[in-house]
């Protein structure tokens, strides 16, 4: 079974570490759905959250091969039931401004933003930029809802994950 797994890597923030990890994943044929990286509260330590596909054996290899990299401090498999996961998205939409219907459109988008706890980041010139964050499922739902409007651009982060407890 090629299930999805979430790997969390704690790494030393040294030059080339992103390259090292992406080289490893591509060379070993590990399928990456998404990869998110950023600093942690500890100076010099960054954290990767990588969503991969593969069975248990593949996952074990990913963990062990990542752990072999000298800059990788810990490699853990995040159990979705025991972790919190978040994604973030920004979407730019066009709405018509010339007639009544245009305002309706903007209003409707605003309702979606409110309903899903998003935020309006910019508006004007017949365009809106909105942000959403939440579970993958929620972000999927938002994108589904926005499909009936004219989406000009969109971007999503990968997952950020953290173990509970």
């Amino acid at each position, binding site marked *: 079974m090629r299930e999805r797994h979430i790997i969390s890597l704690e*790494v*030393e923030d040294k*030059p*080339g570490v992103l*390259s*090292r990890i992406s*080289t*490893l994943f591509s*060379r070993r044929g590990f399928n990456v759905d998404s990869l998110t990286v950023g600093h942690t509260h500890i100076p010099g330590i960054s954290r990767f959250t990588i969503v991969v596909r593969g069975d248990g*054996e593949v996952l*074990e*290899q990913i963990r*062990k*091969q990542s*752990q*072999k*990299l*000298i*800059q*990788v*401090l810990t490699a853990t498999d995040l159990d979705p039931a025991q972790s919190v996961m978040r994604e973030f998205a920004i979407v730019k939409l066009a709405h018509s401004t010339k007639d009544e219907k245009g305002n309706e459109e903007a209003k409707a988008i605003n309702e979606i933003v409110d309903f899903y706890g998003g935020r309006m980041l910019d508006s004007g010139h017949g365009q809106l930029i909105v942000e959403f964050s939440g579970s993958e499922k929620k972000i999927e739902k938002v994108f589904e809802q926005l499909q009936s409007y004219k989406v000009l651009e969109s971007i999503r982060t990968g997952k950020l994950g953290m173990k509970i407890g």
Partner: protein
Amino acid sequence: MDLGAQQELTGAEALVKILEEKGVEVLFGYPGGANLPIFDALIGSKVQPVLSRHEQGSIHMAEGYARVKHAPGVVLATSGPGATNLVTGLADALLDSIPIVALTGQIPRENIGTDAFQEVDCFNITMPVTKHNELIRNNSELVLALETAFYVANTGRKGPCLIDFPVDLLAAKFPFDFDERPNLPGYKPTTKGNIGQIKKAIKAIKNAERPIVLIGGGIVLSRAIPELLEFVRKSQLPVVRTLLGTGVIPVDDPLYIGMIGTHGNQLANDIVQKEADLIVAIGTKLGNRSTVAKGMFAQNAKLIHLDIDPAEIGKIQKVDIPIVGDVKETLQIINERIDEKPIREDVVAWKKGKKIEHMLPTSDNAEVLEVVLKALSQMDQKLHVTTDVGRHQMWANHYCTNPKHLPLITSAGLGTMGFGLPAAIGAWFADRGTTVVNVSGDGSFMMNMQEFLVAVEHQIPIVVMIINDQRLSMIRELQNMKYGERHTVHDLGKSMDYIKFAESMGGTGYEVHHQEMIFPIINKAIASRKPCIIDFDIAKIANSAHLKALGS
């Protein structure tokens, strides 16, 4: 005058000082604009630079050196093509776990990223073929980077490390602190096997009916041959090996069965595939050439796997009892705890009834190889024997059996043609009292034959035995088996005159074209203690043997 830990030196001087402190005796390399400060700083130092004729030669020399010396081999190349010429050797060292410290010059920092002359992204190119690599961006990183490279290369699962030095940094003065030591929180190799797992393993061995030991190159790398032999003597387990498990247990040992894998022995393969009910695999990655195909290996056996690299455990084969640890340290613990068993007369008796058949490419006068290699094995003195890659390698692996010539130095994982000659030269630099022999083929020899000049320059007692069949026999064999005997691109022709080649470089060349010449010429070449090439004309020898047989 001792300036204490902190010294104002150029980057190149600091580098050489560290090499000296590490006890590096020789550095195999090739100069270029970006690494000249290092060669300059080597003048008058304790480290001897050895000039190869191609950077690939340099790194295979460093590999041969490392295998004999059990210490990192050091290689130095310049930027751009110098660095890319190291890639094959780095990959070879990574797959066979050879400790190498590779140093490369890089273009000046201000030009990096501009596609300047002789610029390549050495750091990223060599990333997947090194255990660890770094590009130095500031002189303050130099000491730590070198200390890390030497430490990482030669601990845990050994392997190649590379440091890329921009040339401006090598020339600039800096107050170096030589007391700095790396802190590597992400690198903590487990050396001592878990005691609970060891107990489980011992119990499984005790309870098994047909247990065997499978040994790999890890035994040689961890210098655990005495511990392995003690383990085998005590447990009385029959032994099979991989290609790199050569020279660990004598072939005439009553408990030795043979080699497994595609070019192993039928009997050894039958045992690991079907007959054994427990396999104790030690110091092997259970690579696909050994385990042959998914589902073939250990069909009826439980598997105990002891290896220094946790990622090798469970990678190819499902393991019942994994033990992560250094082979030597862990075997010492096992040996203290395992019961001594009486001599297994049954193994000897059982072996007598079986034919130990080597699975070798046999077409086109291959039987001559057996005669040549058996003659080499009759040489009574200590030798370091390297091979190249191809048909001769597989035969050498079975017929080079003299314990004084083993372990065989061969490129197993990467199968690098052209490895043997420079590796033999490197082996000599690690042990200058001993004659070195390179068993090669005409195809492999031509890949790095320029390095023969290095052997002549240093008057190295080396004998290059070219198994000359004027073709790429393994390719021909593959075309016979898988391509309906459609032969192409395997013919190397007869135009190369190896005698003249040897002489043109200042060495000695011999031609062997009759069966009766084999032993005397090998003997003469080895006794000469001079750089020699012997051209074994396989077709002619086969013909002479045939005529002789007809005559008698």
